[in-house]
C-alpha cells in the first residue's frame, strides 16, 4: 500500500559468483531504504512540499477556489503594519507563554522534589498527578474549564469576581491555568532526572558540611539542568501552538474582546473561516521562524546554565 514506492536497488543479485563480502552490504543499504520508504515519502509529500508550497502561498492572495494571485510581500506588510488583531494575537500568545510555561515547570519541579524523597505512595502520586496531562488536551476538560471559570462557576464562588471567562483581563489566565494543571508530564521527567543523580554526590556534600539548600543549589540544580532545559524547550514550543482550550473557552471566537485570541486561533480564523489562505500561510511561516528563533536562543543561552556531567555518554 504505502510501502510500494521504493528506490531502485531492491532486486537481490542471486548470482553465486558475486563476492560474498560485498553483497550483504549492498543489500543492507537497499533494505534500509525499504524500511525508510514510508518516512521518506511522508517527509517529502507531507512536510517538505507543504513547507515550500506554504512559503509560495504566503506571497499570494489565495482563497482555495480561484488560482493564487502573486502579491509579493503584501501579506507580510499588512500583517505587521495594518492588522491590529494580528498584533493582538501575538501579544496574547506571548503573554500566555510567559504565564503558563514558567508556572507549569515550577510546579512540576516542586512536586518532583517533594516526591523524590518519599518512601511510600510515590508511585501513586506520580500516576495521579500525571493523569491531567493525558486528559487535559481533550474537549471535555476544556468545557469543564469554561464552566468552572464561568459566571457562577466554582472560581466565581471562591473569588467572587463574576467568572474569569467573561473578563478580558482574566480569561487568558484561565486558559493558562489549564496548561499549568497539566504539570504531570514535565514532573515525571524531572522525577526521572532526579533519580539519576548519584547519591554519592549528596553524601560527599553532607560529609563536607553542606546544608540542604547548598546541596540543592550546588548538586540538584546543575545535575538537573539538562532535564530542565529539555522540558523548557518542549513546553515552550507546545505553548506557542495552544489552540483547543482557547477555542473552547471562547466558543471559537477568541473573546471576550480578543483576549484569548491566541496566534493559532487567529490563523485558523484567517485561513479556514475567512478563506485567506495566503495570509494564513504567511502567519504560519512567521510562527515557524519565531519558534525556530526562540529555540535557537534557548539553545544559545543553555551553554551558560546547562551542565552536562559526562560528554557524549550515548
Amino acid at each position, binding site marked *: 500500500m*504505502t510501502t510500494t514506492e521504493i528506490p531502485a536497488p531492491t532486486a537481490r543479485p542471486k548470482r553465486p559468483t558475486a563476492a560474498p563480502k560485498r553483497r*550483504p552490504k549492498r*543489500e*543492507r*543499504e537497499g*533494505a*534500509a531504504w*525499504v*524500511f*525508510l520508504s*514510508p*518516512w521518506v515519502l*511522508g*517527509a517529502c509529500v*507531507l*512536510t517538505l512540499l*507543504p*513547507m515550500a*508550497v*506554504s512559503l509560495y*502561498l504566503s506571497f499570494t492572495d489565495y482563497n*482555495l477556489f480561484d488560482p493564487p494571485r502573486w502579491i509579493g510581500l503584501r501579506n507580510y506588510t499588512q500583517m505587521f503594519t495594518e492588522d491590529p488583531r494580528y498584533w493582538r494575537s501575538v501579544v496574547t500568545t506571548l503573554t500566555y507563554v510567559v504565564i503558563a510555561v514558567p508556572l507549569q515547570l515550577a510546579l512540576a519541579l516542586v*512536586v518532583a522534589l517533594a*516526591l523524590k524523597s518519599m*518512601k511510600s505512595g510515590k508511585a501513586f*502520586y*506520580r500516576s495521579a*498527578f500525571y*493523569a*491531567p*496531562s*493525558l*486528559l487535559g488536551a481533550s*474537549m*471535555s*476538560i476544556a*468545557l*469543564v474549564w469554561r*464552566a468552572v471559570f464561568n459566571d*457562577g462557576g*466554582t472560581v466565581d464562588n471562591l473569588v467572587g469576581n463574576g467568572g474569569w471567562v467573561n473578563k478580558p483581563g482574566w480569561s487568558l489566565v484561565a486558559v493558562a491555568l489549564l496548561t499549568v*494543571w497539566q504539570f504531570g508530564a514535565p514532573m*515525571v*521527567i524531572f522525577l*526521572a*532526572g532526579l533519580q539519576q543523580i548519584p*547519591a554519592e554526590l*549528596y553524601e560527599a556534600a*553532607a560529609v563536607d558540611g553542606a546544608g540542604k539548600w547548598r546541596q540543592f543549589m550546588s548538586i540538584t540544580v546543575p545535575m538537573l539542568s539538562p532535564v530542565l532545559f*529539555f522540558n523548557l524547550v518542549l513546553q515552550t514550543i507546545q505553548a506557542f501552538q495552544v489552540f*483547543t482550550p482557547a477555542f*473552547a473557552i471562547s466558543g471559537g471566537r477568541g473573546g471576550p474582546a480578543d483576549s484569548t485570541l491566541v496566534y493559532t486561533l487567529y490563523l*485558523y480564523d484567517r485561513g479556514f473561516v475567512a478563506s485567506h*489562505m495566503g495570509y*494564513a*500561510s504567511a502567519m*504560519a511561516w512567521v*510562527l515557524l521562524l519565531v*519558534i525556530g528563533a526562540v*529555540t535557537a536562543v534557548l539553545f544559545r543561552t543553555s551553554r551558560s546554565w546547562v551542565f552536562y556531567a559526562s560528554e557524549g555518554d550515548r
Partner: protein
Amino acid sequence: MTAISATTDRKPVRWGRIALHLGCLAALLVVLYPLVWLLATSLKPADEVITSLNLLPSHVEWSNYKTALDGVNDVSIWRLLSNSLLIAGGAVLGNVISCSLAAYAFARLRFRFRGPLFAFMIATIMLPHHAVLIPQYIIFNQLGLVNTYWPLILPKFLATEAFFVFLIVQFMRGLPRELEEAARIDGCGPFRSFFQIVLPLTRPALITTAIFTFIWTWNDFFTQLIYLFDPQKFTLTLALSSFVDSSSQSAFGPMFAMSVIALLPIVLFFLAFQRFLVEGMASSGLKG
C-alpha cells in the same frame, strides 16, 4: 531504588514526612477537582447545574446519560464513538507500523546520508504543525479527500509523527546487538532480523507508541475541525464542540455526560497502562 540516605535523624524526618503527605494530598484534591466536578455535574438534575453551589447533586440524575446517548444533531453517540475509534485505531496502526520501520533503519542499518536524515527527522519533531497545515489541507482538498478520514489517518502511515520514530530509535539502541549479529552470521537478512528479533524485543516502545497515539488522536480537535464537516462523520470531540454552540445552558447535564463518555477510553487506557505511560514519558526526556 536510589534512596537518598543523607540524614536519618528520627524526629524531623517523621514530621517532614507527614507534612509532605498532607501537602501532596492537598495538591491532589486541587488537581482532581475538575474531574470530580465533571462527574458530579454529569449526574445533576437540570435545575441544579447552574444554580446550585453544591459540588454533589441532590439526587443522581441518570437521564443526562440517556439524553447523551441520543447524540447530537440526530447522530447517535454510537456513530460518533465508532467514528472516533476508527480514526484513533487507524492512527495507531499507521504509527506503529511506519515509525517502527523507520526507527529500525535509523537505529540499526547503514545508509547514505544517515546522519543528516536523522538530524532532519529530529528537527521535524519541533516543527509546528501549523506550518504545514494549510498546504496539506490544499493537497487533500485537490485530491477530493476533505470530509473523509484519509487526511487524519494516511499521514500516520507515513511516519509523520517523528516523536515516535525517535522514541523507538532510542529504545532499539538500548537493545543488545549480539542476537542480531549471531543471526546475521547464520545468514539472516535485515528483514527477518527486524521481524523476528528486533520487533518482538521492541514491544514496550511499540505499546507506548500505540497508547500515546490513541490518546493524542482521540483528544485531537484542530485537524478534525478543519477536515470534517458532515455531522455524520463527526467524532465525539467535534460533536461536543458543536453541542456547546447549539444548546442552551439547560443541556449542560447531557453535555457533561457526553464529556464523561468521551474521556472514558482515555481513563481506562490510563488505568490499564499507567506504568507504560509514565515510564515512557520519563525515558523520552532523559536520552535526548
